[in-house]
């Protein structure tokens, strides 16, 4: 995988891997590789909950051609670690993988991957969603959109607890 690791965090308890990358990544291949390299969860994890955020080619009525993701080196990594540690305190999980893109991104590129392995599905679902919501509201990343006519900063993230018709 042509992934440039900017940051890697391995935890001693549950296996936690947090990756920031400047190049495109394949979330499904990342999950597979991570799982293959985690022999301790073989036969132990009944549940894997995963979320992948992908760049859309539209926003607020405009066509988006590119996006630049700025971050705060040091603080971003620290807060991703903190968010996963908080989830670990609340739910029993075996492993957790977080990957986040930074730099220039094109439509249809994956931006973020959160994957949680647990014995039971309730913990996997809850921890995965918690990490995503915390990441969206706390982790220092900023998106700049390039539309056909302008370049603009995305003002805010919407809550993830909406979506029913």
């Amino acid at each position, binding site marked *: 995988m042509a992934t440039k690791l900017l940051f890697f965090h391995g935890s001693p308890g549950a296996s936690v891997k947090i990756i920031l990358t400047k190049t495109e990544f394949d979330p499904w291949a990342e999950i597979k590789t991570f799982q293959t390299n985690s022999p301790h969860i073989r036969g132990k994890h009944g549940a894997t909950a995963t979320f992948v955020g992908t760049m859309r080619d539209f926003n607020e009525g405009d066509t988006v051609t590119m996006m630049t993701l*700025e971050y*705060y080196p040091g603080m971003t990594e620290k807060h991703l670690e903190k968010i996963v540690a908080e989830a670990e305190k609340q739910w029993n999980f075996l492993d957790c993988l977080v990957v*986040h893109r930074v730099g220039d991104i094109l439509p249809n590129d994956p931006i973020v991957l959160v994957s949680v392995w647990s014995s039971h599905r309730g913990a996997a679902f809850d921890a995965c969603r918690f990490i995503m919501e915390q990441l969206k509201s*706390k982790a*220092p*990343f*900023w*998106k700049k959109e390039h539309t056909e006519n302008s370049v603009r*900063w995305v*003002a805010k993230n919407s809550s993830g607890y909406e979506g029913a018709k």
Partner: protein
Amino acid sequence: MSIHVRFFASLREQLGVREQCLEAEGIETVEDVWKRVNPKLSLPEHVLTAVNMDYADVNSLVKDGDEVAFFPRVTGG
């Protein structure tokens, strides 16, 4: 020693400043840092602040050697 100040994203572009080094003398809080850097501009609403890479507020104490950051609402994920 000194206080290291950083700005990110839209705020960085608006102010035209990425990083700055301040003399710690006369600075007690995050708000003092902002005033030193932007004497004519009050801290915009929704601007977030961090001291040594932990979230802080305008009244958080700042000491010599600290890193203080100002940035807009985060939009990752």
